[in-house]
């Protein structure tokens, strides 16, 4: 039982990232009708927002320490971050320690801007082009973004730790009535799950309870009619592209302590997230979230030794297997609209 609960937790955690990326993909597809293969790159850019803020906060001045030597035998150059110098040891180090949560504030405007520029600068020119063209141009854009990041940050993963108080793990089992040390789970992964839940809730609330969201939903249902009412729906859809980019970016920021960011991490999630969108139903926001968590949990269970001993290699194909079954039996996905992908 403890193993099952552990894998459910793992699945929810993986599913959080899938759901957040798939949510953004679905928002863009649902509003603009664009299949955005650069969405994984936006997730990666979010993670690098965390790296960038960490580096900005770590900007230092150098003092030579003659009592210590570097690897060539010269006096060691000791770096002292400006924030430590300005705010003192306690406050300065606390700011450095909390660089990842602080990066949320940094990433929101950056990612909104990136989304806006991407949509206005490139993607809007492909609205009326076939999906194949959109896929090619956005995939190319993803590679360009990747290479730019690699040029500035290198190919090696960059450690971006969580704040000290969230490092290590919690005895989750004790909290739900199990014996000690039965279900141990990392603090930050629980934080990630809760953060995802908040973001997903905020996006749904925004679409449901604001006038802006209501217009966007109306535009998703019938763009032409909304336009006839004198509403500039294109402008709103551009803003939604920015919001989708910000959602992917925030998912990346908070993912940085889980796995050290590298320039390729967006591609690792991209294909899986597309599968999530297809399984959930193209254009269905609740479907994207549901499928994200569902596939995350299935993937975790498929990694269990007991399952792998029965079907070797199942952990590598489970998600694609589900996608094939869904496409064969219910082409519109779990919560897709009737007619979409069924023609």
């Amino acid at each position, binding site marked *: 039982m403890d193993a099952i609960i552990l894998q459910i937790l*793992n699945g929810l955690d993986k599913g959080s990232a899938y759901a957040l990326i798939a949510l953004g993909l679905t928002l863009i597809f649902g509003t603009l009708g664009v299949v955005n293969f650069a969405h994984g790159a936006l997730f990666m850019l979010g993670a690098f927002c965390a790296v960038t803020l960490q580096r900005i906060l770590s900007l230092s001045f150098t003092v030579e320490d003659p009592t210590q030597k570097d*690897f060539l035998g010269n006096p060691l150059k000791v770096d002292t971050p400006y924030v430590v110098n300005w705010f003192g040891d306690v406050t300065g180090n606390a700011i450095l320690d909390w660089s990842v949560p602080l990066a949320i504030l940094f990433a929101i405007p950056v990612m909104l801007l990136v989304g806006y520029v991407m949509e206005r600068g490139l993607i809007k020119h492909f609205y009326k082009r076939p999906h194949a063209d959109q896929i090619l141009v956005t995939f190319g854009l993803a590679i360009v973004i990747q290479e730019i990041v690699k040029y500035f940050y290198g190919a090696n993963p960059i450690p971006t730790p969580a704040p000290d108080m969230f490092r290590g793990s919690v005895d989750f089992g004790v909290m739900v009535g199990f014996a000690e040390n039965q279900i141990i789970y990392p603090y930050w*992964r629980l934080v990630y799950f809760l953060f995802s839940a908040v973001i997903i809730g905020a996006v749904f609330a925004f679409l449901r309870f604001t006038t802006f969201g209501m217009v966007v939903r109306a535009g998703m249902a019938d763009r032409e009619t909304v336009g006839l009412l004198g509403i500039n729906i294109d402008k709103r859809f551009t803003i939604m592209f920015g919001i989708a980019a910000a959602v992917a970016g925030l998912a990346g920021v908070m993912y940085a302590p*889980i*796995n*050290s960011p590298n320039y390729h991490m967006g591609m690792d999630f991209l294909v899986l997230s597309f599968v999530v969108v297809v399984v959930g139903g193209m254009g269905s926001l609740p479907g994207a979230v549901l499928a994200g968590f569902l596939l995350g949990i299935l993937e975790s269970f498929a990694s269990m*030794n007991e399952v792998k001993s029965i079907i070797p290699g199942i952990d590598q194909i489970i998600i694609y297997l589900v996608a094939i079954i869904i496409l064969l039996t219910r082409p519109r996905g779990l919560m897709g609209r009737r007619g979409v992908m069924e023609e």
Partner: protein
Amino acid sequence: MSKFQLNRRTLIKSGAAVGAGLALPTMFTSSARAYLNEPKGGTVTLGFNVPQTGPYADEGLDELRAQELAVQHLNGEGDGGMMNTFSSKALKGNGILGKKVQFVTGDTQTKSDAARASAKSMIEKDGAIMINGGSSSGVAVAVQGLCQEAGVIFMAGLTHSNDTTGKDKKANGFRHFFNAYMSGAALAPVLAKAYGTDRRAYHLTADYTWGWTQQESIATATEGMGWETVNNVLTPLASTDFSSYIAPVLNSGADVLILNHYGGNMVNSLTNAVQFGLRDKMVNGKQFEIIVPLYSELMAAGAGANVRGVYGSMNWNWQLQDEGSKAFVKSFGEKYGRPPSNSAHTCYVQTLLYADACERAGTFDPCGVVEALEGFEFDGMGNGPTLYRADDHQCFKDVLVMKGTDNPTNEYDTLEIVEQTPRSQVEYAPDHPMFAGGELGQCNSGA
């Protein structure tokens, strides 16, 4: 019945006929090459095949730095680096056999097909006479096979699988880097001393040739000192999140987790294991421990604080204090402002060893080079007295057992040397079962 009579006329006629017969093959081939890419002008071209894109691009860049430095030293530029400490004095700083050394580069992308294509291009289009570099065993085996078929020498870069000089060994291929068997042989006694002989190990293993041979080597070595292998779980190479594989470890009864991962896999699996608090737990009355059998400086940097106190092994490290290592670190550090990685070191050494073999053989002919390298004993290259064994073209030398530094003082201070395991402890017979199944075959000069 005729009687054969030898007189002066017969002798001259017979001699002319025999002479013409013997000369016949060379009369028609004198204008053809003696071997592939024979240098004709005043230069000789080496091909450096390293990952310039993809996840190992930083490691490839470090290899390229070292290779460029080696070429400078061979051409008499710079301070000479390890040429000053190398026991063989054949290299004079005037290129190789008097020809100035130039180089071309290829991008392996850490993909076997891409690596073969780039090596092929350097051999066929650029006239490279030797291929060096790489950061993967899959790539090394693929390129080694290509070089054997083409008829050039392959001086492997970072490749740790037993197969490279085991079942996939080739006459034209040489490996200076250590292998998985050596990691196990060096690590096991240190682990027994640090953690005792009554331990239960759980392996997570990258599902490809290197992972399999490393797991087999480490499991055999640790079981040999009394440890029990509880489980070995193969993980897909493309995995990025190892939480599903790590979660069951704590309740498996294991008190040691061995991560047979490299590169991004290693960074992520180690980070995930530390996040799950494995190292904070007591299991079977013992502190839970994690081991990473193969370390690299770049990967240790990527894993950050998670490597602290974690044991592993390396081929070489810049902190060694022998004269050869100091000379190389000084040359490299002054040129690039950073200490070299162990992949940089092996590429640098391999380039010098190739050049030295050409000088000693007096030719660039691959078969002459193979003969010069086989059974070659040398010193002054950072690993103590070293042998290039003729049976399998594997270098035998000291191996380093490393540990993540507990209190790093600078960005390069990620790993510390625990022990320099002597060569005698990591040697094995040429017909060892872990290396069985292949034949060196005959050298190929590509003529």
